[in-house]
């Protein structure tokens, strides 16, 4: 169905040896997933059980001043909590009572484990069970870990969604489940395209509200919209649902192949598929072509951050004409990003995990035209003359599917266009 004039893939990167180095990492921990999840799940509250550092991280990562009162908070562990675990459970009950009194609108409460709560082995599963009984039916209490010793950045969303799967009601309905927190506008576009092909019913995890009619069972098939949802994938498989593997829906090609995998499962006629996708595909190609002018022939280097790196490298090399030097990801789950690796031409170093100083050495030696990295590295690299793209924007900005394909390319071309635009030599 995708008769696209693409570059030969020269075999793909699925079997390319992966460079694994172990050292300091420059990546957020999984707690930061809360920042977009609390906007997505409108009746949920995320309570981190952690230290002052966790609270400080969340407000720094949230840009300090975005929300008057966000639907997340921290129960800060104090010396007395560290002394005995029984105490900590009682203390937690008190904090949750205080919270639910203050916010009676909350229907789902997530107890989020952090590094300190993991190290002292505070049993949040037990706490969640107890509180669910106590506050049922108005509030459902779940737990997951966003700790930096267990998770990096986007894995927090994975851990959260995975925690929701076991409590989903059983259903035998034949249905499509879209998995991953997307901006509403993007989610609606995807559903619109699929419904136009006659596919349905379509459900979404996470649902915006707890009372959404969402179940799972052996007749459920699911498509992941984000490449970092490994645990959620496993949890859904355990519930009998079946995964539809595909490249991730970034760019025109990724979106088409992702839709095609679903269309094929639901027996959509090729004519109908073509009819539904032709116009948006043409729009996407045109928009990408415009933004990609600045990217064509330029080199790119990915520091590990969001786990979107491999699908994005596929998009940028195949659709925008870039050359990938290194594609680093915090974790590589071949079961999920395999189809993207197949399409990524061999050549770049594929690296997993990080020793940041060594990777910086490689990046500086390679002098890429564009470096994708976390916020801690961006300005220092700019100061050394490297144009950078903050990886975090790729998580917050609508970048999936056809109508955003041009914007996605634009996110990468902007730093390069800016570098060309500024004439600061005289001022320096």
């Amino acid at each position, binding site marked *: 169905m995708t008769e696209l004039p693409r570059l030969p893939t020269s075999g793909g990167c699925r079997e390319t040896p992966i460079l694994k180095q172990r050292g300091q990492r420059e990546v957020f921990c999984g707690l930061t997933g809360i920042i977009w999840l609390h906007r997505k799940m409108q009746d949920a509250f995320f309570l981190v059980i952690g230290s002052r550092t966790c609270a400080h991280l969340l407000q720094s990562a949230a840009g300090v001043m975005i929300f008057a009162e966000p639907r997340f908070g921290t129960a800060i562990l104090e010396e007395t909590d560290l002394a005995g675990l029984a105490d900590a459970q009682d203390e937690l009950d008190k904090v949750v009572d205080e919270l639910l009194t203050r916010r009676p609108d909350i229907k789902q409460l997530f107890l989020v484990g952090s590094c300190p709560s993991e190290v002292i082995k505070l049993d949040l599963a037990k706490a969640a069970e107890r509180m669910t009984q106590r506050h049922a039916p108005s509030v459902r209490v779940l737990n997951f870990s966003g700790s930096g010793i267990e998770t990096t950045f986007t894995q927090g969303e994975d851990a959260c969604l995975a925690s929701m799967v076991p409590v989903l009601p059983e259903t035998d309905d034949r249905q499509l489940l879209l998995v991953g927190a997307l901006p509403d506008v993007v989610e609606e576009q995807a559903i619109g395209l699929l419904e136009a092909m006659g596919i349905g019913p379509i459900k979404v995890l996470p649902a915006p509200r707890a009372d959404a009619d969402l179940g799972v069972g052996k007749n459920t098939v699911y498509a992941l919209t984000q490449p970092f949802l490994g645990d959620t994938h496993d949890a859904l498989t355990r519930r009998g649902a079946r995964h539809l593997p595909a490249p991730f829906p970034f760019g025109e090609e990724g979106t088409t192949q992702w839709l095609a995998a679903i269309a094929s499962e639901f027996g959509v006629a090729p004519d109908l598929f073509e009819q539904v996708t032709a116009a948006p595909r043409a729009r996407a190609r045109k928009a990408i072509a415009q933004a990609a002018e600045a990217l064509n022939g330029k080199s790119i280097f990915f520091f590990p951050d969001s786990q979107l790196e491999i699908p994005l490298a596929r998009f940028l090399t195949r659709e925008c004409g870039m050359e990938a030097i290194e594609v680093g990801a915090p974790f590589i789950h071949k079961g999920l990003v395999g189809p993207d690796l197949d399409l990524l031409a061999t050549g770049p170093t594929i690296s997993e995990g990080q020793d940041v100083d060594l990777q910086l050495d490689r990046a500086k030696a390679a002098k890429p035209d564009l470096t994708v990295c976390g916020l801690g590295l961006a*300005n220092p690299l700019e100061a050394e003359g490297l144009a950078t793209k903050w990886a975090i924007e790729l998580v917050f900005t609508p970048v999936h599917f056809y109508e955003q394909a041009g914007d996605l390319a634009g996110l990468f071309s902007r730093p390069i266009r800016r570098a060309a635009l500024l004439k600061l030599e005289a001022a320096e």
Partner: protein
Amino acid sequence: MKLTVWTYEGPPHVGAMRVATGMTDLHYVLHAPQGDTYADLLFTMIERRDHRPPVTYTTFQARDLGADTANLFKTAAQDAYDRFKPQAIIVGASCTAELIQDDPGGMAETMGLPVPTIPLELPSYQRKENFGADETFFQIVKTLAKPMARTKQITANLIGPTALGFRHRDDIQEVTALLSDMGISINVVAPMTSSPADIARMGAAHFNVLMYPETAESAARWMERELDQPYTKTVPIGVGATRDFIAEVAAISGNEAYLDTSRLRLPWYSKSVDSTYLTGKRVFLFGDGTHVLAAARIASDEMGFEVVGMGCYNREMARPVRAKAKEMGLTATITDDYLEVERVIEALQPEMILGTQMERHIGKRLGIPCAVISAPVHVQDFPARYSPQMGIEGANVIFDTWVHPLVMGLEEHLLHMFREDFEFHDAAGPSHHGGHKPATSVDGGPAPQPAASPGGLSGEMKNGSVIWLADAEKELKKIPFFVRGKARRNTEVFAAERGVAEISVDTLYEAKAHYAR
């Protein structure tokens, strides 16, 4: 366990990072899990620094916990030394590493690194960011500074400025100029701008200027005792305080007091006729102790405001802040609970808040203008222009910063004459709220609403039975927005004191007459 929404201070190891990042040729080896590297972005993004903070994190993971985190620490420390070749290393643990009890300080000492290695004890579950900065600087000074011969000319050390400090960069320049005008040159500025080698020669100065007690008081006391260096107690923020500072420096140094006031504009601006409308503006002050104490004096003596409430989040400064509040007939709010500060502001209904980014946030929610006077700060508080708080220029900057939100209020007041005009109707909201009506969130999501209160009564009246009658409520809306809160509060107090259950238009005007001066 304590429920927190926003925090005023980070953990103590962030304080240590502020010291390390301000310095050169010093490296911090921090035993910490991978997520703790978030702190780097405070410096590279919020402060827009062009270098990574000089911190190596050991980045341990769950699978390391049962095994060998200690060895991980040693490898990281050795790698950091080999790569960065610092003159000295500080070592410590973040909150999680503290729990696994590896003793980084002890391990680093056994490694035999060829540079001084300074262990930090920063109890994460008891203390906070300012303590971390103060303690770190103290330990560095204690280890490296030695008694030595004084410089021939009179010199001073400026102590306290750190990375991520509120206008520290510009305050250094301002204080340097104040001292230079008196014939006193600077020996060392620390921690910001200094290297360990510079710390080692701090003993050559005749005295210390303690710029920020939050971050350097322990070091100042130690140097007074061990190096026989007195330190200044006045922080030169505001005109009066700057004059007192000059007098104090003269007394310590023996040099003649001199202050060049040719660029000083605050006093005249304060006296100018259009400043009349500033008279008695009701302000609430909150932030770190140093800036709040300075602000209290400026607000009452140099701006003619009425300070209706004040407080600080750092308990280390509770005593002087309480004393100053008492002197002004107030009870200080000493808390690090954001929600408590919000409740106090809601009850007081000031006309302006002078606070931190947190209070700016509260102000936005309650529709009260706010100027930022203290950390915690945001990227906008690191302006490209010169914008000190200390000295003569600092006083000028403060006048502008504080008056601008109120000038916008004056604009609104004038526009009020055209209140029936379609562009200036009441619901349009004041222009300094950035086009947003109060209590509308910036991201378009549902705005968190203040606790529902009958008839919009202020906090302390919630449980009473005072009700605003429709006519009175309508009349209240005719009062310019920036005095409306005061009018509402005064009327409610007036009614409550007289046992009046319903506020009519007459009650409103009786109250107005009662409070008229």
